């Protein structure tokens, strides 16, 4: 919330300005801290005077009018709802989609996704918990873009062995975790609302504790909920990355690309680590510690 308050003057100023030459429309939803952080990064890179912010949750928000205003050269859609709203209006200018998972190929724009590559996650784990090279991965066949073989291959390149078990729904989740017990050192969880949600997280964490199997989650909330560690994007940096992509696109240096997050954050749940007897390394990289 603090970020939103800090941004309020920028937002008000930007919203009240007429679209200048080279204006960029940013569609987003208020009320999500991660989006606010990304907006802060976008604003820091592009400057607030060029941005035309449209809060889709605000009364009277008129995205159609904003997209049709003269001088608009680019649209940034923050989040999947914003992208859907922009696409439904068939904007005549390129669109950059950011702060989303699993983006399909777009047209005339770029993507900044939130999927952290497996290699980056394993590199973080090597730093955080050295000498533990057996990773478990639960793959949802209905969502995963990678085959089990592809995941194993990528892990091998990082010096890890992975055990990939398919799980097509929450009903099989605990059995899948139980099947990994003793065979892996930690369990990597990829963002998947079907498998990991407020209903499933409690039994999952309990199974992790009872099976002495540390979970590596994908969000701060997951770490607070009981994952031993978490690896997730730096949303402010994702915003900067989006802003830089917009600058390149406006300068005609590229026609848009698909990028993953270039900066990640690592967190540990000290309480759970102590329960599991896991000694995470405190080294040079910054780690958020949740007690």
């Amino acid at each position, binding site marked *: 919330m603090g970020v939103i308050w800090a941004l309020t003057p920028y937002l008000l100023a930007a919203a009240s300005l007429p679209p200048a030459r080279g204006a960029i429309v940013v569609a987003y939803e208020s009320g*999500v*801290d*991660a*989006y606010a952080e990304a907006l802060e990064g976008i604003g820091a890179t592009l400057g607030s005077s060029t941005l035309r912010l449209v809060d889709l949750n605000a009364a009277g928000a008129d995205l159609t009018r904003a997209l049709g205003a003269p001088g608009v050269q680019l649209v940034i859609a923050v*989040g*999947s*709802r914003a992208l859907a709203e922009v696409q439904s209006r068939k904007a005549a200018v390129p669109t950059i989609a950011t*702060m*989303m*998972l*699993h983006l399909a190929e777009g047209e005339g724009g770029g993507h900044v996704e*939130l999927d952290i590559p497996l290699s980056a996650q394993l590199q973080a784990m090597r730093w955080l918990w050295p000498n533990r090279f057996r990773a478990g991965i639960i793959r949802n066949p209905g969502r995963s873009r990678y085959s089990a073989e592809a995941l194993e291959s990528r892990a091998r390149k990082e010096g890890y062995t992975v055990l990939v078990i398919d799980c097509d729904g929450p009903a099989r989740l605990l059995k899948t975790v*139980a099947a990994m017990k003793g065979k892996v050192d930690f369990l990597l969880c990829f*963002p*998947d*609302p079907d498998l*990991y*949600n*407020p209903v499933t*997280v*409690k039994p999952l*964490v*309990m*199974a992790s*504790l*009872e*099976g*002495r199997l540390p979970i590596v989650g*994908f*969000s701060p*909330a*997951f770490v*607070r*909920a*009981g994952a031993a560690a978490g690896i*997730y*994007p730096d949303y402010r940096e994702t915003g900067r990355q989006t802003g830089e992509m917009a600058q390149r696109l406006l300068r005609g240096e590229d026609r848009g690309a698909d990028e993953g997050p270039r900066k990640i954050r690592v967190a540990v749940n*000290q*309480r*759970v680590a*102590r*329960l*599991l*007897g896991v*000694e995470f390394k405190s080294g040079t990289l910054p780690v958020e510690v949740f*007690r």
Partner: protein
Amino acid sequence: MANFRTIFTALVCAWSVFAGSPDDGTKKAGDERVLFGDLPAVEAAALHAQTLAEAPANVSVITAADIRRYGYRTLAEALGSVRGFYATYDHMYHYVGVRGVSLPGDFNTRFLVMLNGHPLTDNIYDSNGFFGQDFGLDLDLVERIEIIRGPTSALYGSNGMLANINVVTRSPVDGERLRVAAETASFGERKLSVSMSRYLGGGANLMLSASVFNNAGMSFPADGLAVPAGVRGSFSNADGERGYHTFANLIWHDWSFTAYFNARQKQPPIGLGTSLSGDPSQHVMDSRSLVAATYKRQAGPGEVRWQLSYDQYRYHDRFNYPIGDDLAAVHDQNRGDWVNSQLTYELPVAGVGPLTVGLRGSWELRSEQYNLIDGEVQNYTARPDRSVAVFAQQQWDLSSRWKLYGGVRLDDTKNYHRFVSPRVAAVFQPSPRTVYKLVYGRPFRNPSAFEQFYNDGGLSYAAAPPLSPEVANTFEASMERQLTRNTTLIVNGFHYRIGQVIEAVMLDGGVQQYRNDARLRSTGLELELSGKAGGGIEVSGSVAVQDAAGGSPMTRLANSPRYLPKMRLGVPLFRDRLFVSGALQQFSARATGSGDLLGGSVLADLTATVRLHRRFDLQCGLRNALDRRYEDPIFLTVDRLRGDGRSVFLKLIWRVWE
């Protein structure tokens, strides 16, 4: 019966008002929301937290934050804030009433108090009379207090009639590395406590805590009391209290080890039986200790839990009885030692729901009661009991909205009869915001060794005839409804019938005897509205309306207020650096054991907690801030005692090493 019909009608009306109103749907969010959304923190992640099984009952929870913000320093204070509960104090023990039942002369025997799921009932009095400093755990160590209303004998056996109070301690992984607290209060109260937690490596976490206290006590008027020669007007130095608490918890992988040792010595200002009052040489000493190990792990499709404990209870007192022209110092000594073991297995039954089965055994190594008069042992009684129990509880998930619970427990003891206690409950949840519960139970209470076997030759207690277990039939209906995001309404109706009530009756000459011939019933309705306003302001209000009667013909129960309204308000200020809270509690008139009505009163408490520094908190509070005069019904040499007037306390907390 008319009252029960009224309550039932009110519940049906409440049901019809709320059952029909639709709940908000939820918006479908994009996949990335899984990264941003909140997930519920799993409290049981502490692993050692031996919480009660998911209870099909109306539950209240006092959290660690409540304890800190509202300045609860004893279990009696904390429970006194809960809907339908009330506490009385005879300056020897605190007595807690619920459902309008707290008979003078009882030893808090109709509910269970547990420490991390381990019953604290002693084996002499079957008492849970530990609510003041005689409760051997400092409330700073409490993570939460779960209060489960209604019968729990189907899971926990004897004494689980009216409610179950489970005190869950903080996990060693959550505690500060070193914490010191010092406390002082009116009536010469002083207390110092130290706690520490350490990670020992390899998944082992240890918490240690110790405290000492020494209270001078207040002065009492000598009016109407038999006091030692020379005492006139009032007496002081006869209400002191001192003692210590220690607690240790080690958790390591699937194991949790607990040690709980404590003792308290209290000077009772009011005499017992025919003894004198205001005699500073009189005292009672209680010690309730235990060491326990718990092992829990997945086994096959379910979870197995095994508990083994050694429990100890010590009590001795000294009261001076006038015999002829002389005073005889009588020391009452009680010693209990026993071993418990319990094995439970909880497994999911495909297509039905979770099933819990368990086996419990208890072996008393010692159960001694005797008197020492002039160094000579008299009235020695030792009747150690042994008991075994089997129990099972099945949950049937009939649909996404309906759940049915059925449980039964068979208890068999050497000293008493077998008893079968069933409980059935239906839970209907038409929406995530609303839940209705109906519970029927048949809980019981065996006579305690004290009630059955103790007598001191007629000084204060006469020998009891053979006693049978108390048996109750209980009916509960409740509705819990989340009115808005931050507002919750609870409506709870109950009807209890307890037969073969074991009750102390006063014989000629002020001597008590336990008998089995009473019966009682209690019918009531409770409402509670709680919520949070902007800025973190907490507001709650509740009222309990209850009609409890007993005897033949039925007359109003002693120490049973008909109305118990309560209010609580908490306001955080200066970005939570200061928390100011207030509580109002009213109780209507209560009868004494002799049938006299004592007027009701309103008690107001104020507490302020300020964070002076990152490592220092200062807390101060006023109790009975309006200095209202009232009397509690008691069962000593007199049947009423003036309640405490206005008092103030001050507490400094230093987190030396976080």
